[in-house]
């Protein structure tokens, strides 16, 4: 297959995943805002930081408010990671790789684009926000479902999965980092009921509340939640799960090729160094530093995949 097509697929699914995860991030922010007691918009600063869009936001706005933050993440054209920008970019890439997709996948992508663009044509009120976020998640899920149900399991599918899981790992790490930012100003709150509510919000933001209860029963605190989102190999949004998928899809792509793929070596390294210890080791190192390291390595892996599979040259 063409290197360009591989690149288009990789980015199409990265953008779809990012649109969904940005929606989740906004949802997490909204929940934290609704469950905290003191006034202010502090959590939106951390949401923007976790989304990696804080510095661009600061160039546009004087101060962080709920309305500005939500609008920036939802529909700002100047923000390449806003839900609207992501959906447009996903559809642009889908057109580029139209020949690699089934008609159903293309149709679902185009429908997602039309619906979401329409919903985000105007500012979204707080009252309408839950419905809009739900629609975003449903439409992106529909594309994923069509992909799962209709696409041949060949090279094309491997690049789809690489894009999906690279982006998802990146996003889960960022959502987990929200907790770090939120916790910073109120170390005294550790272990309080407020703290637990916020941790639960993190779980909700990755649709993991039910799964967590299945694994840990009624108990479980911050350490268990972190363990679940970082190390659990059955949780489909955990770092270990996503990075395991990167490894398996790279190994399918690697079949019949001589020598070691540099990107594969980097994934191996990431798994060995960061995901083969217990959660105590993670906290010992510091959760924030741990996440920063992983984000950096994911970025390097993405660049190496571009080179290994000749996306651009």
């Amino acid at each position, binding site marked *: *297959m*063409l*290197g*360009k097509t591989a690149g288009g697929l990789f980015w199409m699914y990265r953008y779809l995943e990012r649109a969904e995860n940005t929606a989740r991030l906004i949802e997490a922010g909204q929940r934290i805002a609704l469950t905290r007691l003191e006034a202010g918009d502090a959590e939106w600063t951390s949401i923007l930081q976790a989304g990696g869009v804080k510095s661009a936001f600061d160039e546009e706005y004087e101060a962080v408010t709920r309305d500005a933050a939500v609008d920036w993440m939802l529909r700002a054209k100047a923000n390449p990671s806003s839900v609207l920008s992501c959906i447009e970019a996903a559809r642009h890439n889908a*057109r580029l790789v139209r*020949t690699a997709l089934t*008609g159903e996948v293309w149709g679902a992508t*185009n429908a997602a684009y039309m619906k979401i663009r329409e919903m985000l044509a105007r500012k979204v009120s707080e009252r309408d926000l839950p419905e809009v976020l739900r629609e975003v998640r449903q439409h992106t899920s529909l594309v994923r479902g069509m992909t799962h149900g209709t696409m041949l399991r060949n090279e094309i599918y491997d690049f789809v999965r690489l894009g999906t899981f690279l982006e998802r790992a990146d996003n889960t790490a960022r959502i987990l980092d929200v907790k770090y930012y939120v916790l910073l100003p109120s170390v005294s709150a550790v272990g309080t009921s407020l703290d637990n509510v916020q941790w639960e919000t993190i779980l909700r933001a990755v649709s993991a509340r039910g799964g967590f209860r299945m694994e840990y029963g009624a108990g479980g605190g911050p350490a268990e939640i972190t363990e679940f989102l970082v190390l659990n190999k059955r949780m489909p949004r955990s770092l270990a799960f996503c990075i395991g998928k990167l490894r398996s899809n790279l190994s399918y792509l690697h079949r019949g090729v001589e020598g070691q793929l540099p990107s594969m070596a980097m994934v191996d390294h990431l798994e060995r160094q960061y995901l083969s210890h217990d959660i105590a080791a993670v906290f010992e190192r510091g959760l924030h530093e741990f996440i920063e390291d992983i984000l950096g390595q994911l970025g390097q892996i993405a660049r190496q995949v571009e080179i290994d*599979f*000749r996306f651009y040259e």
Partner: protein
Amino acid sequence: MGEKPVFDEMWGQDETLREPYQGFHDWFAEEDISRLRAKQREAEEIFRLTGITFNVYGRAEAEERLIPFDIIPRIISGHEWTKLSRGIEQRVRAINAFLHDIYHNREIVKAGRLPEEMISGNEAYLPQMIGVQPPGGVYTHIVGIDLVRTGPGEFFVLEDNARTPSGVSYMLENRETMLQMFPELFSRNRVRPVQNYPIDLRRSLAACAPNMTTDKPVVAVLTPGIYNSAYYEHAFLADQMGVELVEGHDLRVIDGRVAMRTTRGYTPVDVLYRRVDDEFLDPLNFNPDSALGIPGIMDVYRAGGITIANAPGTGISDDKAIYSYMPDIVEFYTGERPLLQNVPTWRCSEPDDLAYVLDNLPDLVVKEVHGSGGYGMLIGPTASKKEIAAFRDKLKARPGNYIAQPTLSLSTVPIFARSGLSPRHVDLRPFVLVSPEGVKITPGGLTRVALKKGSLVVNSSQGGGTKDTWVLEE
């Protein structure tokens, strides 16, 4: 012309239902208008969701638009089609022979049937093609002949599209949409299928592979890119054929072959169905500023390392100045009388013709020799005095740039209008594939319809729509 009543393909000239429309007529009589209205909206929704759009030229932000689709089929009887396709095949064979001749021995010039300056003075003529033997001997792999009709058996060729004819995706998607919306219509009428076109196209292209091809021929579609007005069609055809859709920067000349960059390195391409104009094909041989082409592809082509479809330099055969010689061309190469008529054409480059044209502007259609898409033309009968005066000046300034034709009384076909069926003017573009194995014409084609009442301009850029085109079993 214009005195006798317009020929309607459903009702003829005397309000008698024509035979091919019998089955449709019975069905329509039982239909509820409001249901059909809903169906018309549904069709639009299908097109929008499928993304069957064209990009509008010259807009800052690439805008995607739908070409309006009309749900009433245009129906041609099997008998009419058989006659028509004989004429088309004859014409396409003549075009290929003509192209071979003008790039080799120029027998037609030696015989005094075509002035030499019509060739060497033509912008579409490519000296780089002199003496080149295209693989399989085919120049025009894909042709779209534009036809208009004026009476029961009267078809005229308006234009031979021998460069990169577009619109075939509409032929296929229109049929697909109709099958989804009105399955019962297809059980009542025996409509010949068009769906084999992509497979026929792939076979036809593969049959023209160069001798260097060692394995199964690798075919690819070359597009100028996602912002091109016909990008949808390029992607659609590549998808339907199951081949790669490439852009210039995916290709590179390596070891005397044109190769595409895959995830595992460069793989040679045997047949390139290019939807990029000659001029942009190769910056080393043609326009040096082209970013769409592949540097050196013409050298590979001349050495027999790749098939380019259509061959470079075919544009001369669909040029409007050459068009007026087509009856001679057909006769010269086939030794037969042309089965399809040409529209009478005045060449403004010739003083007598020019004088006649200037005297009769209000009755004529005047076209630019190299124009397309319905731009830069004058339609005398509908133009204002001021427009005619302005055009007269342009014509006098560069007479060689224009040809003129009488305004034909184009046939009409009903469309689904607000109040029910209402006649509109149409043309027809059947699609023809040429390979060493023969000439293949898909039964059907693209019917373009002028949606504005009385309008003769069917171009999509000027408010035209499309229809599903049926050819019935004999």
